[in-house]
């Protein structure tokens, strides 16, 4: 019996249905009940989807299945929605849907009084639908489609509180940055088909292993394909949008940072065989990943807005994933994505509760919360320990496997990233939970049940990650723990965390801490001035071109047309004065005209004269 795995395509449909149902409560349709039923309906459908995928997971565990549904048939183009239901894809589905369910419960508390409730749940359901379909599909074309839908969802979710100006610009930048990546990916998708004749990942892998492609073509193709995950995973130089996306509501941030962004890496892993066709692309992938990982980890250390700290931590971790995928460690990368998602979601839920009733997101303004919010504190600590390499918790295994497969230079990068992240987590912990109570944190009780419940459930998940990995047989060989690279990694965690705690958890050093060179600190705090960089390059160029072309349109093109009209009028106006009644003038005109036309008629003869 594999009823559930055969019908696994229903999972995204549940969520889509959730979108439509939730929209019924958005303004102007159903008013009488208030917007809350929208949330409950959405929760219910997510539970269905989760249940379905758990049942399907059981079935596909030993025997993965594939099938495809025709979507578009035109001329010589057949696009089918290829579904692959394997332990990996359905497993990812379960993780995503569980996090979605928890986040939706979390949102009940977080958005308790919000008037956009129905819209929020509809958009979260759209996210869910997009992500589930992305996990299930085995076709590059539909991966692109789902990434675009997630881009749209991101735009609308960031723009959730649309009457604040920062939100509006954040939404704009998020949408456009990701769209740039998506469209370059689309170019790759369009260009790939004539070469490979398929978009199915399995067939593409076979094709890539046999084809002999011109290096330039392979490089261009690979770079185009790389652009999609690059923008999605907020890698340099397209990392700014994730930072601005922090203007959106917290539950959406939890989802985005934990899973939505990771979907880019998922697609990257899937299309790695094609990228491998060109060494230039692979090197670019590793270089971008490494640079983003280090620089964003450093930037995170210089932020004072809690949400931004974690947006850069996200970019930084996905940078590590890029490096891992580039160096051929797909399984380790997948494991890191899984453990990272749980750890990041846990940290953000804990932080979100604090933001909700302390109003401020500025970590320099908060402090002394440990006694007031022990649950949030424990969640944060466990999340933080799971995020960096601390055995035996979550990300340790992924990071350790990756560390053992890297060249010394990249290993140094990984150690640096891990150390910096540990330091920045310790910094946030120190600033939030230790130190004196400030005016902002004087009254700070734990939140509503709906806020605490998903957080503590996730805490349980996070603590059980090592055990679950062992049960599922995903845990790497235990000999890994005593490898020198692993030991170095643990050392870097200890050192980074130690330095962070020393500086921020004990009042030995006066705060705020200034680096000896203020320029460097500002450079990090303002995110390498990327916003300004965009402003003077892309935005300026497009703005200038648009204005210039519009000027041409108004003045030159339309001007020429109006000039013709004007000349007609003017000549008519001036010619009318020629109607003066003088016989001789008319005769002269007739004569001149006759000569003129005569000359024209004689023109062929004239050329014969000489």
């Amino acid at each position, binding site marked *: 019996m594999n009823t559930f795995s055969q019908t696994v395509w229903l999972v995204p449909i549940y969520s889509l249905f959730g979108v439509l149902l939730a929209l019924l409560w958005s303004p102007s349709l159903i008013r009488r009940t208030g917007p809350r039923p929208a949330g409950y309906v959405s929760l219910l459908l997510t539970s269905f989807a989760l249940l379905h995928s758990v049942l399907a997971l059981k079935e596909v565990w030993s025997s993965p299945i594939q099938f495809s549904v025709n979507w578009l048939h035109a001329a010589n183009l057949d696009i089918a929605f290829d579904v692959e239901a394997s332990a990996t894809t359905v497993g990812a589905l379960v993780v995503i849907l569980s996090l979605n369910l928890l986040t939706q419960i979390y949102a009940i508390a977080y958005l308790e009084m919000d008037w*956009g409730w129905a819209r929020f749940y509809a958009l979260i359901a759209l996210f869910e639908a997009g992500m589930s379909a992305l996990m299930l599909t085995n076709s590059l074309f539909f991966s692109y489609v789902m990434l675009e839908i997630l881009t749209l969802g991101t735009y609308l979710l960031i723009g959730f509180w649309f*009457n604040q100006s920062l939100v509006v610009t954040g939404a704009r930048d998020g949408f456009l940055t990701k769209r740039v990546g998506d469209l370059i990916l689309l170019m790759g998708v369009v260009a790939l088909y004539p070469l490979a004749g398929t978009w199915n990942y399995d067939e593409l892998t076979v094709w890539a292993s046999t084809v002999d492609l011109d290096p330039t073509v392979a490089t261009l193709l690979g770079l185009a394909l790389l652009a999609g995950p690059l923008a999605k995973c907020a890698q340099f130089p397209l990392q700014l949008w994730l930072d601005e996306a922090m203007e959106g509501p917290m539950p959406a941030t939890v989802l985005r940072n934990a899973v939505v962004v990771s979907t880019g890496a998922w697609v990257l892993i899937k299309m790695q065989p094609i990228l491998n066709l060109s060494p230039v692309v692979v090197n670019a992938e590793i270089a971008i990943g490494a640079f983003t990982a280090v620089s964003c980890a450093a930037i995170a250390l210089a932020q004072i807005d809690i949400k931004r700290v974690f947006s850069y931590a996200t970019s930084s971790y996905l940078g590590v994933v890029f490096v891992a995928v580039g160096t051929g460690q797909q399984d380790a990368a997948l494991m890191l994505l899984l453990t990272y998602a749980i750890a990041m979601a846990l940290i953000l839920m804990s932080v979100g509760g604090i933001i909700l009733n302390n109003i401020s997101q500025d970590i320099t303004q908060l402090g002394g919360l440990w006694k007031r919010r022990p649950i949030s504190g424990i969640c944060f600590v466990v999340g933080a320990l799971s995020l960096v390499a601390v055995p035996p918790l979550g990300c340790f295994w992924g990071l350790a496997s990756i560390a053992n497969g890297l060249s010394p230079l990249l290993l140094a990068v990984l150690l640096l990233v891990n150390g910096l992240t540990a330091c920045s987590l310790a910094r946030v912990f120190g600033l939030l939970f230790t130190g004196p109570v400030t005016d902002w944190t004087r009254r700070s009780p734990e939140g509503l049940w709906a806020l605490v419940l998903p957080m503590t459930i996730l805490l349980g998940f996070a603590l059980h990650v090592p055990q679950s990995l062992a049960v599922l047989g995903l845990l790497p060989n235990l000999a890994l723990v005593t490898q020198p690279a692993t030991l170095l990694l643990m050392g870097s965690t200890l050192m980074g965390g130690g330095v962070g705690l020393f500086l921020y958890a004990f009042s030995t050093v006066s705060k705020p801490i200034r680096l000896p060179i203020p320029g460097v600190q500002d450079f990090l705090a303002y995110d390498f001035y990327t916003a300004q960089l965009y402003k003077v390059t892309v935005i300026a160029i497009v703005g200038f071109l648009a204005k210039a072309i519009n000027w041409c349109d108004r003045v030159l093109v339309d001007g020429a*047309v109006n000039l013709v009209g004007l000349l007609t009028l003017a000549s008519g106006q001036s010619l009318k004065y020629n109607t003066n009644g003088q016989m001789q003038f008319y005769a002269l005109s007739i004569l001149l005209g006759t000569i003129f036309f005569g000359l024209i008629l004689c023109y062929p003869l004239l050329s014969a004269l000489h």
Partner: protein
Amino acid sequence: MLTPLLLIPLFGAIAIALYPKPQASRTIATIFSLVTLAWSLYLLSQFDLNIGEIQFTEFHRWIDPLGLNYSLGVDGLSLPLLALNGLLTIIALYTNRKDMERSRLHDSLILLINAGIAGALMSQNLLFFIIFYELELIPFYLLIAIWGGEKRGYASTKFILYTAVSGLLVLAAFLGITFLSHSPSFEFSDIAIDNLDLTSQLILLTALLIGFGIKIPLVPLHTWMPDTYVEASPSTTILLGGIFAKLGTYGLLRFGLQLFPATWHIISPSLAIIGTVSVIYGAMNAIAQRDIKRMVAYSSIGHMGYILVAAAAGTELSVLGAIAQMIAHGLILALLFFLVGIVEQTTGTRDLDVLNGLMNPIRGLPLTSGLLILAGMASAGIPGLVGFAAEFVVFQGSFATFPIPTLLCIFSSGLTAVYFVILINRTCFGKLDNVRAYYTRLTINDQWPALVLTAIVLFLGVQPNWLLRWMEPTTTTLVSELHAPAIVQIAEIDNSYR
């Protein structure tokens, strides 16, 4: 089978004129156009998907010495457009009716337009086509000149001058085609283009290109269009952008690509360049606009450019994409203009710098804003909506022939996203102005045409096969004509040219 599509709206126009109560005009018009739409849907159901040639033909001799016959027929190129014509007529009847004066004249003109466009799409005789092609200018002129905005005089004059020139050029080309090739009549099937040498073919095709290019419009022949679209009332604009402009691309495919397969090959690279320039030019201009209606008007130039690129590429897939894009663009543009019309009617302005925060659920226009976002995204080519399905087929089809122009078109669909984000961020997002925001409440009754269009846009986006299946046999036929004899013919023409 096809005559009813001509006669029903004509009878409707007469009925409105004769019926004594002017306030009943819309009801009568709705009934007649619903019957027309139903008839075209019935034709769709009867359409034989295995035949790529003309179907449901009707032929009556009319003025024999001239070669003018009453000759109708449809194929997969014209039938979907006929259905679109019927749909948009009903939408136009329900657009922006507040304080409508002389509604009787207005509604009968709209029905006349329906008949005119249907006639042009169905006629299989070149002269018969021209009659309709020119005839529908009169109701459009009146609609713009009577119900237009402040500068309606300027706009309607510009419109009539431009489109009349378009008609003249097309007529001249048709006369040239028939007389120079010594065809026995103006019957489409009688035209034998093989008798023409390359030079005259090129000249005739250029005349057609300029003639239809004005209608589409292509850069730099477009300047009538922003003025006209902006000054005309929303209902007129929906018909202008949604279906009237499609006559240009229809003509180009029917009389350019289908009549001159060999020469089409020769000029197709330049066509692709003109198309790409239109695409980028339209998008760039749209970014610079401050008036939302003008912005949507410029967006139309960009999107029509895709059709030209696809038609130029001339692969089976790209021509299919071109026809699909006509329908998709007609639907999306109608939706956009409808919503912009609502915004203008309710807030009294179209200025991006004044509009703000319309998403506000209590005092704003939440449903309109939501639909506007969806329409903008459909136009920007977000998957799941019909715009993407059509554009993707265009891109995939054209890439094989013209890789660089196709990539530029994809790039430009990013620019589309830029101006729609500007539009949405300024109108829907932001803070509602407390002083201005005393808008009349809109009900579903005011907005159902938008909901209908949205539903179609969504449905065809999720199930693009329903859009493409009607066109496929015809495109196969069109393209086989384009490719099979083309190589031989070019060689022959080249020889004769030398």
